[in-house]
């Protein structure tokens, strides 16, 4: 059954068309990654899905009762706002202790429940935000460049965690990422966005497509290297 269906979506910000004629369908349980250069409208698309931005044209059909877990690209916590991890996890709804512990464990941060948010590292904070998004048992998990600032190892761990979460919760995942080779490996489907969708499909198909190569300025060698990279290191492959 289809989870989300976007059709003919146009969205303008400050008088400029940022998204144009977007069509995108999401099935339950699939991992879809949006790639695209800076300013190509990736964050804008995610914000329109959660309802924070209203499109000028087109429609976003959500399956009734769909719950979204959202991890924003950047979250600046004002220094004047005292906040512990466990309080953040209870916003906006109270949750029983064991649910919070499970979510923190799923996201890979167990020791930090009573820490101040301001004492966390960037990676820890991202994982706490992921845990918070998981608490609502989402049907759709939306991640906007969630691995920003993580090192290679941290990134690989993070995507493995996402895969595990998908298997445990059965949720679909829609994420934005710049780490092309990792993304390629971790997704069922890749969508290239540059104001409008220029190509989409399985990671192999997208990696081989001329639109994708043109967008990232790759020549044939680079694309081939990316593709090989994907197949050459099974140790990073996600266990089914």
């Amino acid at each position, binding site marked *: 059954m289809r989870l989300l269906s976007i059709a003919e979506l146009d969205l303008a910000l400050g008088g400029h068309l940022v998204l144009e004629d977007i069509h995108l369908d999401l099935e339950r349980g699939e991992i879809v990654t949006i790639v695209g250069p800076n300013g190509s409208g990736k964050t804008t698309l995610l914000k329109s899905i959660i309802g924070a931005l209203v499109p000028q044209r087109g429609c976003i059909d959500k399956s009734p009762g769909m719950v979204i877990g*959202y991890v924003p690209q950047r979250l600046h916590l004002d220094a004047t*706002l005292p906040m512990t991890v466990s309080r953040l996890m209870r*916003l906006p709804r109270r949750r029983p202790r064991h649910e919070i512990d499970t979510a923190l464990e799923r996201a890979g941060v167990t020791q930090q429940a009573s820490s101040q948010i301001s004492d966390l590292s960037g990676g820890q904070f991202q994982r706490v935000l992921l845990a918070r998004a998981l608490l609502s048992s989402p049907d759709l998990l939306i991640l906007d460049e969630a691995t920003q600032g993580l090192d290679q190892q941290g990134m690989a761990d993070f995507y493995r965690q996402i895969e595990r979460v998908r298997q445990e919760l059965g949720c679909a995942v829609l994420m934005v990422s710049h780490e092309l080779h990792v993304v390629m490996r971790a997704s069922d489907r890749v969508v290239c966005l540059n104001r409008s969708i220029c190509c989409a499909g399985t990671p192999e198909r997208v990696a081989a497509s001329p639109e994708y190569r043109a967008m990232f300025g790759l020549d044939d060698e680079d694309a081939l290297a990316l593709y090989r990279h994907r197949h050459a290191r099974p140790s990073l492959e996600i266990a089914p």
Partner: protein
Amino acid sequence: MILDDFLVRATLAGLGVALAAAPLGCLVVWRRMAFFGDATAHAAILGVALALLLSTSIFAGVLVVSLLMATIVSLLSGKGYAMDTLLGVMAHSSLALGLVAVSFVSGVRIDLMAYLFGDILAVGKADLAVIWGGAALVMALMGWRWSRLLTATLNAELAHASGIDPQREQLILTLSLAIVVAVALKVVGVLLIAALLIIPAAAARTLSRTPESMVVVAAMIGVAAAVGGLQTAYWFDTPTGPTIVSLAAALFALASVLAYVWRTALRIMAARPERSA
């Protein structure tokens, strides 16, 4: 009756305002809206003037003008003017306009100082009813919307994803701000209302680990400042509103020093075992 004592009435008035100001002041501090509270308060003097000209209740006049000004600023912000510029223009022009308008009120002898600095010792039973009515309304609003307000304060998109409309929460906050300004006018006056919002919250920050504990500590500091300031002003015959705010400022300084000493002590204690090891 106990309410016949003007000191009791003044104390109760101060309590009401301090309690309502605590959650609101924290939200204003977290959202960096300090200047917004200030501007709303300045606009209140125009409300006083209009109420006197139209012979309506001061509370209603102040409420209407505060709400009007909050709405105008919300509508105009992001349309070419920076928020602080817009607030500066609105605040000072409505204060000036209010002072000019007051001069047209003939036949009525008004003590403008009472509105600029408040006159808590002159709080009557009707005033007390208005103050506690407004304060209770604001506290109920805050209690009802607290989770949503806090989530919207944290991040607008997170709020959206949880089904919360941050704009609606902003409106509720602005509304509450206008109510508290109207209610606090008699207690500390136009010039010091923002101080009563900001200073207890700022003092509470260093002593708190969660948003809620900050509100509770801010309330305690606000209440201490109001009650203590009232007594001090009474015994030393100083102006009451400014005395209350001065005491709040002293508590802020004390909290800052305490937090600094505490952190230093923790650092020294953390360093000691390393040396012995």
